[in-house]
């Protein structure tokens, strides 16, 4: 675009500013040679109306609650209803976590979110050799319906919604949740919540995998199909960028790979013969809120715009609810530091603010001690209060999408969209994300970005306060939560007692029916509900899956 096209007054004053800027920086060089985001996007000194000349308000931004949803998915946003303050928690045994749930509900939390321990996430019972030393460590141990019943004791499942962060065994946990609800007298069409159920990002980033990609996709589509018919208020997948970012990706990679995963799930469900408008409204997303404030806000705004266009133009969805990208956000665990841990409260607050300014539907704020251990009750409370201060005191919720029209934010939003689309096109050319994963493409891109970032930190080109600048020798010791080793022995004993007490013939029979279903192509969900109601364990079910479908092993690239 030629300079002569620009409005004269701006052009003149801009030329004056540019000249002054050159002179100024020649006399006093800027602090840095190059200014860039945490993802290494170069950022200019100034953005002006010229930066957003091509922006078409109606086409690119529109109004809140209207296509393309850049300004938010709801008409009145936080003036109508605040985001859900959903704190991820889970520790030790189901009884311990149940106590934490009651505590959080009493302090104003509005939705539950379960963290499971590693054996549960990987499809092993607490007594498996690989579970040694890991039971209850980074979340709650769930072996069978009996544990799930204890987890929700005193909590009525028609009064809360629950998010379960679990992937390979997600369908099993959903089956258990349905069974607990039905035992409470709550029918399955009345329960609400989310299972993460996003295996693609497991292969890409988080690495809790069990079965190979193709059977994993089949089970996911089974849950979509089942919930569409029977559990209409359930969010069937939380398509997650969080872990992609935590594994070291850039903001653009997080955006691109997450949306590429979303495209793959929609395509798989459409291929099953489902009507896109029947299931797409129940898909939700999960993003990271990293420390680079404006980049994150631009990321959320770009995400909504890209997804609505993909759903409308690529998948021909007609229901506006299918076009909306609703998302949960968690502040960036990887931005927290073990050094000077109280600084983490400040980091988390800025990150949370970016999520709110970006229009999130729900939010988890990390606790200051999460880099060291599971959060203590006190630090989890500060993290929840951080959200409440943003909501009730700062005034940022008074108006909708307050940063719209900012020359900088709109420029960055466009740039994120363009760069993400370039990745998505590349993945399409490879034949889709499953093929890209099999080639190691997203994994390699993330590993490169993570290594580059670490080099920049080591070279002090990126600054982390308290780590490579403003470090101090004074030790800050904070009280951290310890999970007693007795959690493991007690859980193993409970499991043994359960296996002795239950009707083992029914367990065997229901597991046999599950195996037959897995070998064929019938929907697995009703079979899973039968097994869990008979107190078949998570691992007994997963062993059937592993036998029928095989297992996936980490290729060990670095």
């Amino acid at each position, binding site marked *: 675009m030629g300079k002569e096209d620009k409005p004269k007054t701006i052009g003149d004053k801009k030329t004056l500013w540019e000249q002054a800027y050159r002179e100024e920086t020649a006399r006093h060089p800027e602090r840095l040679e190059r200014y860039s985001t945490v993802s290494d996007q170069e950022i200019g000194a100034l953005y002006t109306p010229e930066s957003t000349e091509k922006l078409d308000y109606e086409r690119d931004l529109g109004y809140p609650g209207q296509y393309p949803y850049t300004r938010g998915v709801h008409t009145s946003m936080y003036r109508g209803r605040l985001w859900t303050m959903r704190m991820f928690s889970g520790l030790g045994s189901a009884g311990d976590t149940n106590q934490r749930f009651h505590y959080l509900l009493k302090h104003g939390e509005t939705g539950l979110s379960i963290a499971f321990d*590693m*054996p549960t*996430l*990987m499809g*092993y019972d607490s007594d498996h*050799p*690989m*579970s*040694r*030393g*890991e039971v209850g*460590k*980074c979340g709650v141990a769930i072996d069978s319906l009996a544990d799930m019943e204890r987890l929700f004791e005193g909590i009525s499942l028609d009064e809360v919604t629950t998010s379960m962060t679990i992937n390979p065994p997600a369908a099993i946990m959903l089956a258990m949740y349905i069974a607990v609800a039905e035992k409470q007298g709550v029918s399955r069409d009345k329960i609400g919540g989310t299972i993460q159920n996003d295996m693609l990002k*497991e292969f890409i980033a*988080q*690495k*809790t995998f069990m079965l190979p990609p193709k059977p994993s996709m089949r089970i996911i589509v089974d849950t979509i199909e089942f919930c569409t018919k029977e559990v209409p208020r359930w969010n069937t997948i939380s398509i997650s960028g969080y872990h992609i970012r*935590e*594994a*070291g990706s850039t903001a653009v990679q997080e955006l691109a790979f997450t949306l590429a995963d979303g495209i793959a799930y929609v395509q798989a469900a459409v291929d099953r013969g489902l009507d896109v408008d029947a299931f797409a409204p129940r898909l939700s997303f999960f993003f990271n809120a990293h420390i680079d404030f404006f980049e994150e806000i631009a990321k959320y705004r770009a995400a909504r715009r890209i997804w609505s266009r993909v759903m409308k133009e690529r998948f021909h969805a007609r229901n506006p609810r299918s076009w909306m990208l609703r998302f949960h956000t968690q502040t960036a665990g*990887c931005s927290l*530091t*073990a*050094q000077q841990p109280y600084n983490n409260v400040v980091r988390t607050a800025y990150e949370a603010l970016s999520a709110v300014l970006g229009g999130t539907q729900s939010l988890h704020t990390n606790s200051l001690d999460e*880099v*060291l*251990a*599971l959060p203590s009750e006190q630090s989890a409370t500060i993290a929840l209060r951080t959200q409440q201060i943003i909501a009730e005191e700062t005034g940022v919720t008074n108006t909708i999408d307050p940063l719209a029209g900012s020359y900088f934010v709109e420029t960055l939003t466009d740039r994120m969209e363009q760069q993400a689309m370039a990745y998505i096109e590349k993945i399409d050319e490879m034949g889709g994300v499953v093929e890209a994963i099999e080639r190691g493409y997203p994994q390699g891109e993330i*590993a490169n970005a*993570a*290594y580059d970032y*670490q*080099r920049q930190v*080591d070279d002090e080109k990126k600054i*982390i306060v308290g*780590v490579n600048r403003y470090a101090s020798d004074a030790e800050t*010791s904070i009280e*951290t939560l310890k*999970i007693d080793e007795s959690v493991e022995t007690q859980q193993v004993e409970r499991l043994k007692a359960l296996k002795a007490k239950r009707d083992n013939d029914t367990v065997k029979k229901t597991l046999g029916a599950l195996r037959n279903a897995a070998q064929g192509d019938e929907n697995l969900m009703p079979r899973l509900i039968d097994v869990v109601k008979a107190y078949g364990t998570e691992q007994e079910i997963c062993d059937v899956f592993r036998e029928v479908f095989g297992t996936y*092993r*980490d*290729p*060990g*690239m*670095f």
Partner: protein
Amino acid sequence: MAVKRRIRVLVAKPGLDGHDRGAKIIARGFRDAGFEVIYTGLHQSPEQIVEAAIQEDVDVIGMSSLAGAHNHLFREVLKLLAERGAADIPVFGGGIIPDEDIPKLKKEGIKEIFTPGTKVEDVVRWVEKTIHPRE
């Protein structure tokens, strides 16, 4: 001209923990420093790690743990190395390891523990200083 053997290092991820960002960065840093690197990939049992270390004839083992199971897993690897007559292979660790666990682990034979915020270069230097490739 006698060429000194390059340091062979096994980077290992014991247990079910899936956090491999640090392990992969360290593995690359070692490779860039000229070490021969064998990376086990995720979800390795202590038995698998010890077997790989012996099979690959490594000079040192580095283990990464971020999900709280380090005490059990690191100890188990040391125990199995001793049982297999390979206690001479030094072992170091990294990840989320609470301060109070570090002296205990060192006393039991873990040579060093690197916690978050450590520069890759510092780990490389420690290995170069401490590990002498076997002939």
